[in-house]
């Protein structure tokens, strides 16, 4: 089994040079679309289903990995991420088979980061130990809230108590790198409610915290309740001031507890940044396998079909986008600037053969003047300030050419 070769300690992020991720390095995203049931805010690709489908799906994912590897000779796998859906519904044995397929198909880096999204209430100690043994060394818990009424309202299947039990199981099973996902601006949520969730989470000392706001997406049950206007009887959404207060509170409390905000909505203890996500932001190569998964290799982005029947028939990607130099420049900016480290002007020149100031001079100057962006001329880096991060959508939109 592959797990025998795995080490547990988290490698220093410092080993990584995100400004110039090597071309032969690869990350792998594995999509597992099944859920116990769909949450009321969720518009991602997932559907409820029976356990007997998992085996066939796992087979197919393994085949897909092998097939893709044939097209990508000589690449080295540095991170793996099981996302969903609810990947923690799969059997440890199935996760092990997928990792085995990956290890056979690619050269494995020394200290790979292998994450699995885990929904509280879908696991117990034995399963977590099994995942750990399969080679998974990082867990991402979709906690969202510590309040049972909030959890029930947004359609999560777990309770606070179940989460706390699972978290303890995870530690006991040897997971030393754990993320907890939180969600603010939930229906009926007060600032005090959110603060309790946040403080209780921080008390657990996870290595990483992701904090998002609830977004009402079209096509979800919440859209019917909140999309156009709030339906009668629906718990009201927090107003803008409350939402902003939650956002600032997250930043403040996380910093006080020794976390750094390394990306717009991600906080980590030093060295515990999610490297897999940083690969997305710094435009490293990543392969997406499984239903509807996205990937980017070299100058192409692609997406696997979202049709389950088709997925079993063909590995032909549903969508392939060839990126122009301009696309790549835009992505470099609007993805890289999400991160606290920002982007390296030297790396920009190396990648595009052009000085960043020739391409983005006026925009950079404009936002530098307004205090939304800092150009560190000694370190040759450009990054957003906290104020810039607060309104990143407006600022980053200006980097589209």
């Amino acid at each position, binding site marked *: 089994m592959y797990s025998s070769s795995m080490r547990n300690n988290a490698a220093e992020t410092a080993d990584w040079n995100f400004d110039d991720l090597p071309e032969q390095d690869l990350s792998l*995203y594995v*999509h597992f679309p099944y859920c116990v049931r769909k949450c009321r805010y969720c518009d*991602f690709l997932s559907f409820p289903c029976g356990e007997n489908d998992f085996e066939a799906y796992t087979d197919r994912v393994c085949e897909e990995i092998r097939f893709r590897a044939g097209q990508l000779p000589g690449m080295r796998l540095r991170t793996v*991420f099981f*996302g969903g859906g609810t990947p923690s519904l799969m059997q440890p044995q199935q996760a092990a088979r997928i990792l085995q397929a990956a290890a056979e198909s690619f050269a494995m880096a020394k200290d790979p980061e292998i994450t699995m999204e885990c929904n509280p209430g879908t696991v117990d100690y034995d399963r977590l130990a099994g995942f750990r043994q399969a080679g998974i060394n990082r867990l991402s818990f979709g906690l969202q809230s510590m309040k049972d009424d909030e959890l029930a309202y947004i359609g999560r299947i777990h309770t606070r108590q179940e989460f706390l039990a699972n978290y303890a199981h995870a530690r006991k099973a040897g997971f030393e790198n754990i993320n907890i*996902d939180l969600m603010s*601006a939930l229906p009926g949520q007060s600032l005090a409610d959110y603060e309790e969730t946040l403080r209780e989470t921080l008390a657990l000392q996870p290595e990483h915290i*992701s*904090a*998002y*706001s609830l*977004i009402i997406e079209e096509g979800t049950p919440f859209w019917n309740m909140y999309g156009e206007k709030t339906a009668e009887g629906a718990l009201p959404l927090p107003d803008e001031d409350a*939402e*902003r207060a939650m*956002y600032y509170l997250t930043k403040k409390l996380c910093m006080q507890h020794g976390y750094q905000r390394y990306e*717009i*909505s991600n906080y980590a203890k030093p060295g515990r940044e999610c490297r897999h*996500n940083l690969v*997305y932001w710094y435009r490293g190569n*990543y392969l*997406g396998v499984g239903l509807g*998964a*996205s*990937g*980017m290799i070299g100058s192409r*982005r692609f*997406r696997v079909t979202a049709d389950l029947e088709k997925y079993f028939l063909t590995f032909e990607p549903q969508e392939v*986008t060839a990126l122009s130099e301009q696309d790549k420049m*835009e*992505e470099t900016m*609007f*993805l890289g600037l999400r991160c606290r480290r920002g982007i390296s002007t030297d790396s920009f020149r190396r990648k595009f053969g052009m000085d960043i100031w020739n391409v983005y001079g006026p925009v950079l100057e404009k936002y530098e003047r*307004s205090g*939304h962006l800092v150009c560190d001329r000694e370190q040759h880096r450009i990054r957003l300030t906290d104020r810039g991060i*607060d*309104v*990143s*959508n*407006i600022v*980053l*939109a*200006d*980097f*589209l050419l």
Partner: protein
Amino acid sequence: MKINQDHIRNFCIIAHIDHGKSTLADRIIEKTGLLTKREMQDQVLDNMDLERERGITIKSQAVRTVYHADNGEEYIFNLIDTPGHVDFNYEVSRSLAACDGAILVVDATQGVEAQTLANAYLAIDHDLDIMPVINKIDLPSAEPDRVAAEIEDVIGIEAEDAPRISAKEGINIEAVLEGIITNLPAPSGDPDAPLKALIFDSLYDPYKGVIVFFRIMDGSMKRGDRVKMMSTDAEFDVIEVGYFGAGQFIPCDELQTGMVGYMTASIKSLGETRVGDTITSAVTPCAQPLPGYKKINPMVYCGIYPEDSAKYEDLQDALEKLQLNDASLFFEPETSLALGFGFRCGFLGLLHLEVVTERLEREYDLDLITTAPSVVYRIYKTNGQMVEISNPSNMPDPSEIDYMEEPYVSAEIMLTTDYIGTIMDLCQERRGIYLGMDYIEQTRAVLKYELPLGEIIYDFFDALKSRSRGYASFDYEFKGYRESKLCKLDILVNHEKVDALSFIVFADSAYDRGRKTCEKLKKEIPRQLFDIPIQAAIGSKIIARETVKALRKDVLAKCYGGDISRKKKLLEKQKEGKKKMRQIGNVEIPKKAFMNVLKLDEE
């Protein structure tokens, strides 16, 4: 073909909007056999797409058809289509002057409406014989007898024998055709007198030059004749004469007394062939021109700017091209601090303005920013001078102004009695002077008001429609200038005066308008990265203020499984929104705000 003058009928069809004028015209053309059914487009007379969409006729047009009457004779029908909107009243009056009779179409379900009345009176003023026709009798709610009685009561013309038809279903159209022969007169006019022809429209053709549409009152015109325009004394050699087929020009040798037709003479500009002018022979001119000619002036002005300043010259080209066919369109270069280089354009009315801007955008593919429309104010200065201004930026310093005048119209509003109170309130709000009210029947009345033109050019019509639930109709004509207490209201965005948002307003409503304008702008301007104060000022005095609060944080969305395309779409949407903005100082103002800001009656 020699045509007997007795066998010519020149007529128009007049009606309130949607009462079926164009449909009846189609039927007449169809039944007179000039066109097969297959050739018929839905509404033959309305050539321009825009006209078809709006269901109105913008330019006068004419068509000649041949009718084989029940008595076995052949008759020439010249059907002259008239514009259906008050903006084009002068053109309407000239078209009517080219006719001898009119068919008045009245909707059997609606009865007499404001424009029915206005058009009927206009026709009577031009000594036309009127034949009423009651249309839409196929509809279940049709009340032809009631409507016939109403026509007799309200307009005072015989309507008992009016043909009851359905133009849409083709019912009883023959009665209309026979009625044209028996009820409408043949042209009078002296075939032996010197040429006297009335210009009722013209069209610019890139190959032939101006094509002049006219009706011969006396004498005749043939190819090679030397003719003279009596208002300008310009002379031309006639190259081609002819008449109007359906949608085409059919050349002929000669046009005789009573005929309607066209001529070309290598005329370069529409300015030389003014609607209402008289064409006569340069060799043996007639003694007097036909009455009724006047030079028309624009009533409504606004600034038109290209969204992209690089398109300034394209805009100029487009305006020049439109002007070739629209002598009443006026424009001159103008500069705005906020909007850059553009044009101040003058129009006959708001509809004319909308039609022109729509054509510029549609046919010439230009993206425009239009400023709020303005009327022409007269400013009497303390030094005795009078200046006319249509651009608020040109308003002299208040210390130099003795007094000001603004244009007034007299308006007739026809409505059901339920809405008299609400509509009187509306007129009162718009500074209307009540002139009187006539009951047409128990449930309907005509309200008469004098209203400042400046109060009705933005949204009066919309307000009227919404407050009366569509049961009021409206017509107006220019009355004259009246002294008025006016002042200029400036709008400051982020402490900078935005000249394109200034407007002239009645002094007593300045505070109210200032406040509402700020509120409106607050809704129009999206939140940006800093607080944006919006202020209204008279001179240096701030009279109203609102603030667009800064956007301080956006939502934090999760990026699932490296799906970057979502992020990019979000940013593209953000960027797309920016394109609809105009940068003023460091504030971005949506382009539509410049026009929307005065539409205050929206509740």
